[in-house]
């Protein structure tokens, strides 16, 4: 894509490399790119005055401050930030304890772990579980209540069906139970479509039920779009997933996206991923044929391209412009869905505007 050339990926690349540093797949590329990063650049990034902003940036990208230890080797500077780093380590450990707990108590419940970013140093706030249906959700809620968790029902206009469990066995992790793959008010797939891909994978040495990579890609991309931003952790994980998705599976994702009126999110995020991967690795992760197919199906594809033309550099988290992710998205989603499912089409519009207004009113903080 020719318009890739004028877009610079933020020098946050350094953190990208660090995030990848324990990932074997990327180790080769990482070593090449690390060579390109000069020592003076590293010094600037790791200065005492710069680290607080670096920390904020890490958190706003769902990454743990432990990464600083990997980037900056200067122990004098690091000592100042040890309590913060420990705090993040503790949060990550808490979440792992939560996964062990979920794995143990919800054995007889049909669920899947979703929105879990399986990359080193990802810092996620909660454990998101998709339940097969309301019956499974109720089973999970009863089991969790029996295990001493406090159960909360969301009364938000935005999350009317979500249930949250906290304080399980006096631990601080939070478990979110979703009966539908519904971001804000828009359903992005049927539970059947997702549960068809259910398989068991290893997360932190725990065997967890997960969606297959194509479906995982689809869920994370649509979720990021619904929140109008894409974090670096999400980008890295989507890149990792892209590597394992076969061409045939890309077309399956497109089919689902076309069916549920979410092609805008998949198309825009695919373009971003291709820019990122071509800058960092030197090639596009998403095949050209897939992009062309999306272009054919998504009638407003030129709007996404126009936005990419207009930006000079990609900074993380990427904030999608309101015109694209709210206005055009609601138009596209309504056009794609109104004949099949008018209610979902209306909720699609409601979702985009709710997300936008909640961002405005609640002044959503960048840190998690």
């Amino acid at each position, binding site marked *: 894509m020719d318009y890739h050339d004028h877009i610079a990926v933020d020098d946050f690349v350094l953190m990208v490399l660090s995030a990848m540093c324990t990932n074997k797949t990327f180790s080769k590329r990482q070593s090449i790119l690390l060579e390109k990063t000069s020592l003076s650049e590293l010094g600037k990034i790791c200065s005492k005055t710069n680290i607080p902003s670096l920390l904020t940036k890490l958190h706003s990208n769902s990454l743990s401050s432990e990464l600083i230890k990997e980037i900056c080797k200067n122990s004098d500077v690091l000592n100042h930030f040890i309590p913060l780093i420990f705090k993040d380590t503790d949060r990550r450990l808490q979440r792992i304890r939560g996964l062990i707990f979920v794995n143990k108590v919800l054995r*007889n419940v049909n669920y899947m772990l979703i929105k879990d970013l399986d990359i080193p140093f990802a810092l996620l706030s909660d454990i998101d579980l998709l339940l097969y*249906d*309301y*019956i*499974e*959700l*109720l*089973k999970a*809620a*009863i*089991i969790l*209540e*029996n295990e001493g968790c*406090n*159960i*909360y*029902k*969301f*009364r*938000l*206009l*935005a*999350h009317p*069906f979500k*249930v*949250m469990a906290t304080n399980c066995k006096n631990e601080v992790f939070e478990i979110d139970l979703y*009966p539908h793959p519904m971001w804000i008010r828009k359903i992005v797939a049927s539970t059947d479509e997702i549960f068809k891909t259910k398989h068991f994978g290893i997360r932190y040495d725990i065997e967890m039920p997960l969606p297959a990579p194509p479906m995982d890609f689809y869920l994370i991309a649509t979720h990021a779009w619904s929140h109008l931003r894409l974090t670096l952790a999400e980008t890295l994980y989507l890149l990792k997933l892209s590597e394992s998705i076969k061409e045939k599976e890309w077309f399956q994702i497109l089919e689902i996206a076309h069916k549920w009126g979410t092609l805008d999110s998949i198309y825009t995020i695919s373009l971003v991923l291709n820019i990122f991967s071509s800058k960092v690795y030197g090639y596009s992760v998403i095949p050209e044929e897939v992009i062309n197919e999306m272009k054919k199906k998504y009638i407003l594809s030129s709007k996404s391209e126009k936005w990419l033309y207009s930006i000079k550099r990609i900074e993380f988290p990427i904030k999608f412009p309101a015109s694209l992710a709210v206005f055009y998205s609601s138009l596209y989603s309504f056009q794609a869905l109104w004949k099949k499912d008018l209610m979902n089409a209306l909720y699609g519009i409601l979702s985009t505007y*709710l997300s936008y*207004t*909640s961002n405005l*009113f*609640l002044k959503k903080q960048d840190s998690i």
Partner: protein
Amino acid sequence: MLIRADKLIGWILIVISLSIFSISLNLILFTDLIVIKVISLTSILIFSFPLMIGTKLIIYEPMNKVSAEILLKYYSSKIKPLCISFSGIDGAGKTTHLYMLNKVLKDLGFKTRIFWMRWPAFTSYPLLLLGKLLGLTSRKGSFIEHKYYLNKVFSKVISLSLIYDFILRYAMIKILQKLQRWNLLLDRNILDLVIDLYVWTRERLLFSPLFIHLYGNLLKNCTVIIFDVDEKTALLRKKDTFDVPYLRAKRKLYSLLSKLLLIHTIDTTQSGIYSTFTNVVDNLGLQRLLELYVLIKAKKTSIK
């Protein structure tokens, strides 16, 4: 409580602000008086604050601590209503299992309604009276015996009339189910009526392909199970039934309908009540509901 005061206030503020906005906008656009235009513009500015507060009240304060029981009430109303119907000869255990199922569903917070569908007569009463006057109905001990087969014309008319009444009643129940989101538990259905009618009329029309197709369509959105039991056990279980040959003839007809309409049959002769119930639940695809029920019962017991 799922509706809270803050949300209500939020909505009221939004409705009031938007109403004032529309009135003010109309005044700005269609009035020439400058004073009114200024007042309207000011009111738009002033009422943008309640609009913001209202929106914030709706969006903000996201959650409410609940118990699993409250969740149960909330979500059971969201599950697509069920329609379950049991058929079979007297003494096979239909009603017992229907009431057991009703208890499970009720305890899970489902809105259920049981309807007895054996006797649908509604517009057919004059015909039934005529049958009595013609001497086609007589009392045999504690039973009423219908010998409509003695009059061929009457047999056809009464069969069609009672089937029509059944359709009428069933349609009304289905409409009510849609409106009220009831989970329907039907004790017997069109199959039982057809078999009764056949015994009374010996009318072959009742088993014609067209009619079989009609029964299949009528039961399309309802899960049907035929309960079977051997005649002697049936007589032991239920004293007020006819004799063995009568039950045997009926069993044959149920078996025929089961084959024609691909309806599952459960033999309750040997099995105990709980194993039959588990079998019924499995066949209805409601195993997960039963698991949920067991979890709730265990929870309630542990609290006690």
